[in-house]
């Protein structure tokens, strides 16, 4: 799931080299922290947060196979 998130983010930003996904295992959930260049934040959030919402939906759908809640955090 982290792979897919990283791939998608790289397609959306101006600076793909700055894209990094950090996986943090918490007791009841997996947190995927998506790091992008500061100037690219808007690109992964989108108008009215629509890109971020679509990314979250896809991450959630993919996590069904993980049997654990997966959260997405976007950080610069």
């Amino acid at each position, binding site marked *: 799931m982290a792979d897919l998130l990283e791939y998608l983010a790289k397609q959306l930003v101006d600076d793909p080299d700055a894209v990094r996904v950090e996986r943090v295992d918490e007791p009841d959930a997996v947190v995927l922290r998506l790091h992008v260049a500061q100037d690219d934040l808007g690109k992964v959030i989108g108008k009215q947060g629509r890109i971020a919402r679509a990314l979250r939906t896809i991450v959630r*759908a993919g996590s069904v196979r993980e049997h654990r809640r997966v959260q997405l955090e976007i950080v610069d």
Partner: protein
Amino acid sequence: METQEISVEATGETVGEAKWAALRELEKQHPGLDKSAVHFQVVTEGERGLLGVGFSPAKVVATVSAGAAAAAPVDESELAAETRALVTRIVDGIGVSGRIDVNEDDEVITVSCAGPDLGMLIGRHGQTIDAVQYLANAIMWRRHPQDRKEVVVDAAGYRDRRRVALESLAVRSAERALSDDEPVELEPMTAVERKVVHLRLKEFDGVETTSEGTEPNRFVVVHPVA
């Protein structure tokens, strides 16, 4: 001219399963390949074993000529092939396996998925498939700002079924708005679905439609007009 061949090896509990697995792998690498051109060679028949002892899997090699592998999508444009690759990557990443077909016209590239676990791809109220579609559009638009086409992601006729249901809901709501002479608020919908309702009622006499509320709870309101 030398004929190039593509081979994959696969295993399974039985020869049949191994063949099926090999075919799936070939299709994954070469979407739309001509299945009748695939040849199988059984490497080992496998041993069923007894109570798990002595089990060995069946192994087959599936071979197809490079020509047959590339034959099907020959009429596929570069844009369509790229869209196919993008959607395939997302669908695989979500963990849904299946066949992907692409259809292209002047304005729209439709990517249709078929397979066993499409419910997972569609998601509640079509949320997941709409998210895939939204991202596919955003990415393709970014890559090709000049010659962009709308991308529609479908799963086993889902869009058609949903469109028919939404259109009939739209008409019923318009009739109610007219008979009660009051605005009718519909359930929250995705942008794709709201558009279906707006379009259906555009030619419906006596009503106008608007969208209200904020995502993800944005909904259509059908207003009667004097």
